[in-house]
C-alpha cells in the first residue's frame, strides 16, 4: 500500500478496482482472483469433507445438521427440475452453490482489510472478491456450458443432437436448416454469457457501493460537522447495505446453481 494514501476519491476507487496482475496483454494473470478462488475452493472441500468424516448415525452435531440440511435442500431443488439420474448433477450443484457463496461472501469483509493484509507482504493491489472479476464468472459459466453440452450429447446421442441443432425450432425443411442452426447457436451461447454477466454485475456493483460508502468516512480526522456526519453515515449505510448484501450473495449463488441445473435439464429434453 502507498504510505501517503490515495489523493482523492477517484484514485481511491480506481486503486480498489485494480487487480494484482502478473504478465502482459492476453497472458496477464489476476493473481488475487486466482489465489482467493482456489483458497475458497479448498475451504469448500475442507468444510464439507470434515462434516462427512465426523458424521454419525446417532445424535448429529450442529455442523452435521447444517450440512445435512444444505445437502437435502440442494438435492430437493435438483430433483424438482432434473428428472434423470442426478448422481453427477446434484453434487455439482452443491459445489457451485457453496463455492460461489463463499466467493461472494468475501464482499462482506471490511473493504480495506484484504488490501492492508496484502500490503504487509509488499503487494500493491488486492481484490478479495473473485466473483467481481469477469474472468472467474466466465470460467465458471463456460464450464457450465460444457456440462450442458455433455447432457445434450448424453441424452440424444451425437447424431440426435446434431439433427436437433438443424431442425429444432422451425422444422426439418432443408431451407430452414441454416436459420435453425443460427438460432440454436445464439441460444446456446446466450446461456453462459447471461450466467456470467449476472453474477459479475451483481458482485461488481455491490463492491462499488461498498467503496462509495467507505468514502463517506474519508474526512474523519478533519473534525468538521460534515465529516462527523459522514463517519456515522458510513457506519449506518455500511451496515444496511451489508445486511441487504447477505440476501444478494445467497440469491446469486442460488440462481447460478439453479440455472445450471435448469439448462442441463433443458438439454436432456427431446423436441
Amino acid at each position: 500500500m502507498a504510505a501517503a494514501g490515495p489523493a482523492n476519491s477517484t484514485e481511491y476507487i480506481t486503486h480498489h478496482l485494480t487487480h494484482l496482475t502478473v504478465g502482459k496483454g492476453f497472458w496477464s494473470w489476476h493473481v488475487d482472483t486466482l489465489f482467493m478462488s482456489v483458497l475458497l475452493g479448498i475451504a469448500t472441500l475442507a468444510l464439507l469433507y470434515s462434516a462427512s468424516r465426523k458424521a454419525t448415525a446417532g445424535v448429529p452435531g450442529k455442523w452435521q445438521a447444517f450440512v445435512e440440511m444444505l445437502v437435502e435442500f440442494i438435492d430437493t431443488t435438483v430433483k424438482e427440475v432434473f428428472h434423470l439420474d442426478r448422481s453427477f448433477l446434484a453434487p455439482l450443484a452443491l459445489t457451485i452453490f457453496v463455492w460461489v457463496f463463499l466467493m461472494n461472501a468475501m464482499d462482506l469483509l471490511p473493504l480495506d482489510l484484504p488490501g492492508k493484509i496484502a500490503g504487509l507482504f509488499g503487494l500493491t493491489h488486492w481484490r478479495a472478491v473473485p466473483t467481481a472479476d469477469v474472468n472467474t464468472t466466465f470460467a465458471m459459466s463456460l464450464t457450465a456450458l460444457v456440462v450442458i453440452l455433455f447432457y445434450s450429447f448424453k441424452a440424444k446421442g451425437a447424431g440426435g443432437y446434431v439433427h436437433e441443432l438443424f431442425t429444432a425450432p422451425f422444422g426439418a425443411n432443408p431451407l430452414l436448416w441454416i436459420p435453425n442452426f443460427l438460432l440454436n447457436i445464439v441460444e446456446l451461447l446466450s446461456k453462459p454469457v447471461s450466467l456470467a454477466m449476472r453474477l459479475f454485475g451483481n458482485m461488481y456493483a455491490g463492491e462499488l457501493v461498498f467503496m462509495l460508502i467507505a468514502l463517506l468516512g474519508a474526512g474523519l480526522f478533519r473534525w468538521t460537522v460534515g465529516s462527523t456526519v459522514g463517519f456515522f453515515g458510513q457506519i449506518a449505510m455500511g451496515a444496511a447495505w451489508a445486511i441487504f448484501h447477505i440476501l444478494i450473495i445467497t440469491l446469486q449463488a442460488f440462481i447460478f446453481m439453479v440455472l445450471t441445473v435448469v439448462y442441463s435439464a433443458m438439454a436432456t429434453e427431446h423436441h
Partner: protein
Amino acid sequence: MENLALIAQVQSYTAIALGLIIGLGAIGACIGIGIMGSKFLEAAARQPELIPTLQGRMFLLAGLIDAAFLIGVALAMFFAFANPLLARFG
C-alpha cells in the same frame, strides 16, 4: 483550452448516459418486481398452502429481474470512476 472543452463535453455526455442507464434500468426492474410481487400475493391469498413453494421461486425470479439492472449499475459505476472514453485524452 480546446482540450478542456472536449473533456467537459465527454464528461457531461457520460453523466447523462449514467442517468439514463440507471434510471431506465430502475424503471424496468421496479415494474418487473411490482408485477411479480402482486401476482405472488394474489396467488398466496388464493392458495396459502402453496406459499413455501412459491416463495422460493419468487426470490429466484427477483434475482433474475434485478440482474440486468445491476449489470447496468455496475457499468454505470465503472464509467463514473474510471471512464475509458475520458482516458483517451491522456
